[in-house]
């Protein structure tokens, strides 16, 4: 296994998918996986199957909704889109993430300066 690739942190996948859906509008599972792959420049090691678990979980929470549609190559596919509640959740999670990563960043810098 490629050691340079990072594992996806627990819980961050939800955040990434929400953000993707917010930015790009309705997408199917494959499209979401491609988008994350593209953005991460292949630095993330992602089992694409876990995307579906995450999608299901968020559907149950009411953050996203799903509808059947037709993909670009005319095949039947399930399209996921963000809901209002998902938007709100995204805001909260983003703020959370920034605060925590800021803290961790500062802590790590302290470590190296000493």
């Amino acid at each position, binding site marked *: 296994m490629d050691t340079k690739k990072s594992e996806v942190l627990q819980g961050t996948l939800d955040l990434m998918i929400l953000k993707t859906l917010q930015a790009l509008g309705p997408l199917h599972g*494959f499209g979401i996986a491609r988008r994350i792959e593209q953005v991460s420049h292949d630095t993330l090691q992602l*089992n694409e*199957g876990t995307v*579906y*678990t995450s999608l*299901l*979980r968020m559907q*149950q*929470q009411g953050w996203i909704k799903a509808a059947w549609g037709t993909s670009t190559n005319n*095949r039947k596919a399930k399209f996921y889109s963000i809901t209002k509640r998902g938007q709100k959740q995204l805001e909260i999670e983003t703020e959370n993430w920034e605060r925590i990563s800021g803290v961790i960043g500062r802590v790590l810098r302290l470590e190296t300066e000493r």
Partner: protein
Amino acid sequence: MASKLERSLQGFAAKLRGFLSRQGHDAEFDDEIQEHLQLLTEKYLTQGMSREEATRAARRQFGNTTLLRENRRELQTLTSLEALWLDLRYSLRTLWKSRAFAAVSIATLALGIGAATAIFSVIDNVLLAPFPYKGASRMVFPRIHGAEQDEDEGRQGYTAAEALELAESSQIFDGSVATEEDLVLYRHGGGTDQLYGARVTPGAFEFFGMPALYGRVMQPRDYEPGAPPVFILRYKTWKERFGEDLSILNKSFVLNGTARTLIGIMPPRFGWYDADLYIPEKLTRSAGVGPAGYPNWFFLGRLKPGLRDEQAQVALTVVANGLAKLHPHDYPAQFTVLVKHIGDTVFEHFKATLYIVLTAVGLLLLIACSNVANLMLARATTREREFALRTALGARRARLIRLLMIESMVLALAGAALGTAFAWGGLKLLVASMPQELIPAEAVIQLNAPVLIFTLCVAALTALIFGLAPALQLSRRDINDSLRDSGKGMGSRSQDGWLRDAVVVGEVALSLVLLISAGLLMRSFVALRHANLGLRADHVFQTMLVLPAERYKTTEQLVQFVRPLLSRVKALPGVVDAAESSRLPPYGGNQTEIDIAGKAHLENWQSLFQYVSEGYFRTLRIELRQGRTFSEAEINNARKVAVVNETFARRYLANQNPIGQRVRLENLETEANTPQNAWFEIVGVVGDVTNRIPQGGVDPELWLPYTLATPGRQVLIVRTAQDPATMMDLVRKEVWAMDSGVALAYSNTLEGFINERIYAGPRFGSIMMTIFGCVGLILVTVGVYSLLAYSTARKTQEIGIRMALGARPADVLGMVIGSGLRLVLGGIAIGVATSLLLGRFIGGQLIGVTAYDPVTLGATTLLLTLTAASACWIPARRAARVDPMIALRDQ
């Protein structure tokens, strides 16, 4: 926080939806995954991979699809339900494998649950919901309770005018009926029979809300004066006296000299007033007192919905105060009106017995639970490795507890099923041994829906009680301990040992409490039977003579019948003595207010009184204390003389010579046909005779010559030389030779009568407790035996080593018995202490023995110790026979 709850609810809803429509969604989801894999493969193909490589890369990129499906399942379905089913099947399988354990547990639980179910059936059917009437829980009767009277005393018989006044209190009742007992003489070809009739007021059957089984109930016109006379028969009487013969419907019967038409037969559960038949009567304000000679209309009303007892009491006290102004002598100077619910009269005294029995059953159930808990603990120890393995493979603790709880639940439900069968059989026995007059006539004791629900709840509760401790114990263990351990602990007791010990100690304690109460109740019952009633009940036959009212109206008519009858009966061979009285002994007479000449008193003085012939005291062997009893001349000349009991003399004439004192009976002055002047001279004092039935005790009582009485209830008392039961036919012949229209009722030996009326309740209690005590003893024996058998089996190796090192069998025997007896003695100490603490609760039920009776405590403790010691004996002997070679090899 609210949104968290909302979300979890949403999740659950989604799960439920998923669970209900899983098939379709599964397929859809698979399609979605396939599509994704397809697209990934295509992507790799365009990058120049071969199809095979591309497929493999796509799979790698996507990850484990099976795991994904499982994750999804867990998210979307109620996995717990499925797991529950799996656990259930697993439990059934493991229990089937250890059949002996399961059988003993289920039988033990069935004993406990069965007993609880049977007793609860009685309580539900007798105490909680005995009456089949419409709104029975709101049916009450008022009792005029004088401020100076004992708690359960007071007047609940009313005049017609009073009953009408009460019935018109429409702000209190939304329906009512007044009932008066009416002894009915029924002339038929063979002679005369007495039936117990009840006269009921208009609207009675509508009030109870029960239609007739055959024929019809009374219509308003049936109550009108001058309407064709009719009556309605109770089912039980129809069955017992008329053999369920339907042809008697609409036939005419001569009742008390009046031809009445039978218009209806009531359904089996209608038993109002425990009467044989019902006669319509419309109350009028001008009517005097009825045939009883005192206000005897029993008023029953249904409280308006929402009206509380206390509110009704206040409102009724207002009504009664109005009545008291009109008839001041019918009311105590200061009184309140108590509201009593129907049934209160019937089982006031039976209630305590039933609740004691229920407590006993609860204890029994606890013992059964602790036995099963102990068996489970023992079994759990042998399963330690299984559970350690499960934990090592990732089972969570909650999951393990659930598995064990399901096993417990299976056992409890099986026990409940078997227990219900026990209860069904046991109820038949119970009903047969129950004192019949202590339960409402309407009550049918059977298993019903509320009882079965109760049983289910009990089963669930027992599962919690006996299952939780082993479950927690087993799931808490450190897995490494168990996996490392070879399974059979050496020497030192394992950690859970104390819990098993505690269970046995508790069990012994509970069982001892049961045994001690059983012993106390039994001794109390024996004491009650030997208690001095104040009269000699053996060799006495008694019967009530019911005189046709139309031919016996005056004292002269009464005396002309009784005096020759007494001489004829006395002349019979085998008859020692005969007497007449106005009450069936040992019941006391009617109540009256009294005054004593020259004695001022503020409070209300009360006494019972009855009319007797000169031979009364001699016939019943009532001891004379002072003065003399009536002479024949005094009786024949209807002299105004009285004999009082010791309680009377002590209470009202303390430190004085009662002989020659003059006493006035107020009631006599208000009744018709009795002399206006009701002053009597006391000529004698006799020993106290129990006259407060059934609770026991003695109230002041007066006896007056029967030649002053008007015909009412006449009782013939005969002392015989041989078995009194054999005299019945001879006496009946003499009575009918005098007048064939006279009926004989309640014919019985005095001993038989007392047996039924006074002893039935306590006997029932002591029989029940004895049965429970024995069951408890059996359960404890099983408990002690199984604990020791199990712990010695686990210590086989240790015993082998001890014996190899030179211990003799006797040492081993002593060691095992000692370890068992230590627990038993601990339990006994706790049990004795608990019994002493509980003493004052049971004390009220005891007669002639205290709750701290050393003989009972000693005997039951000894019994329990011996039984427990013998339970220790078998495992101890087995241990002593251990062959060290085999024991040491067995690992």
